[in-house]
């Protein structure tokens, strides 16, 4: 006899005692091929207060669009030095920062391609289940055709796009607003 999936519950305020051993500031080593970047930002609640007791889990393809771990496409091993997953805690300012390479584009279910993106799973005290979001890269021409991004109302798409820090060529910024003005887009699958 089969049952529906077990109900989700919040990670609560003390999850770091169980989960921090897997924290990582990077999804790849410095040796991985591709365009190396950092993405930093902050997470805010409805009042604009930084969320200090949460974490991001990040998942992305390598520079060639291949996934580590369970990859349904059997396109071979990922690039050397590429991991593709990281758990990144929010600090006392609600801030995070991680190092990665810009992912390659990944096939879409309709046979087209997806724009480069990083999948984000966000957990914190006060979230009864994690939130799914995506980080795209502002200005990438593939964004206009991306089968996920194009389902998002135009006025909200910028919440999913990391932007280069002014004057930088490799440091991106992506802010998360859980609720209210400029609320980040979250997905249901």
């Amino acid at each position, binding site marked *: 006899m089969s049952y529906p999936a077990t109900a989700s519950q919040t990670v609560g305020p*003390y999850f770091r005692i*169980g989960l921090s051993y897997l924290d990582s500031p990077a999804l790849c080593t410095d040796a991985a091929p591709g365009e190396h970047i950092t993405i930093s930002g902050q997470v805010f609640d409805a009042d604009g207060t930084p969320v200090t007791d949460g974490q991001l889990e990040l998942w992305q393809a390598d520079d060639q669009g291949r996934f580590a771990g*369970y990859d349904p496409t059997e396109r071979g091993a990922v690039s050397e030095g590429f991991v593709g997953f990281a758990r990144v805690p929010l600090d006392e300012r609600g801030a995070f920062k991680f190092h990665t390479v810009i992912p390659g584009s990944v096939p879409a279910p309709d046979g087209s391609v997806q724009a480069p993106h990083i999948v984000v799973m966000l957990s914190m005290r006060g979230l009864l289940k994690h939130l799914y979001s995506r980080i795209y890269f502002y200005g990438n021409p593939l964004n206009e055709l991306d089968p996920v991004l194009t389902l998002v109302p135009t006025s909200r798409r910028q919440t999913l796009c990391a932007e280069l820090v002014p004057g930088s060529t490799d440091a991106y910024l992506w802010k998360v607003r859980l609720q209210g003005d400029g609320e980040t887009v*979250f997905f249901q699958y």
Partner: protein
Amino acid sequence: MLELRKPFLPVQPGTQPDYLHPPYVSTILRSPSQPLIVVPQTLSELSGPVFGHAAIEKFDNDLTHQHSGEPMGERIIVHGRVLDENDRPVPGALVEVWQANAAGRYMHKTDQHAAPRDPNFSGAGRFLTDDEGYYRFTSIKPGAYPWGNHPNAWRPAHIHFSLFGAGLLTRLVTQMYFPGDPLLPYDPIYNCISDEQAKQRMISKFDLDATIPDTALGYRYDIILRGRNATPMENRK
């Protein structure tokens, strides 16, 4: 790898919490106000990380032997299977657990509950399921503890579980409760699920067969991860 191309089943109504659940006060400012945008499952979500034994250390499945002395409290064995909604075992799933000590205090700097810390209990462990989806660990029964959600609020005894199955959309964080806990009817986190049976499946079962005479009480806790549709996603690449 055809199996991995099958999309995940839709969520069964009532069996998962909403983001906004006002009795749990912290959800009020942290839940999205806009509806989630429903999007297709793509390779980015059908794929997912694999965690090997490298991350697991010797006493990660025995929370009573991580220090020089023995922790205070009632020793327990918690065991069960990780299955999917298709009733198939999930092998190689990473299970991470964390919990309060027997007095109801976490080994965490922000836990200010005036109950004693236990220098012999860190309250964290991790392990992988075996080929049949089975897991087992040793711990002590966590204590209930007060929290600031509402006047005289107490969390029922619970152990936090975090799981990764095959594919990102199997990701699950839940809490395991204990049978007969009188605090359950009052707990807004346990009661965030509308489906009564789904709620009760978060309660472990006392298991005399898993009980080790003179040593530890056994509890059984099976966990179900999201299952897959019968039909693979097309992939023209």
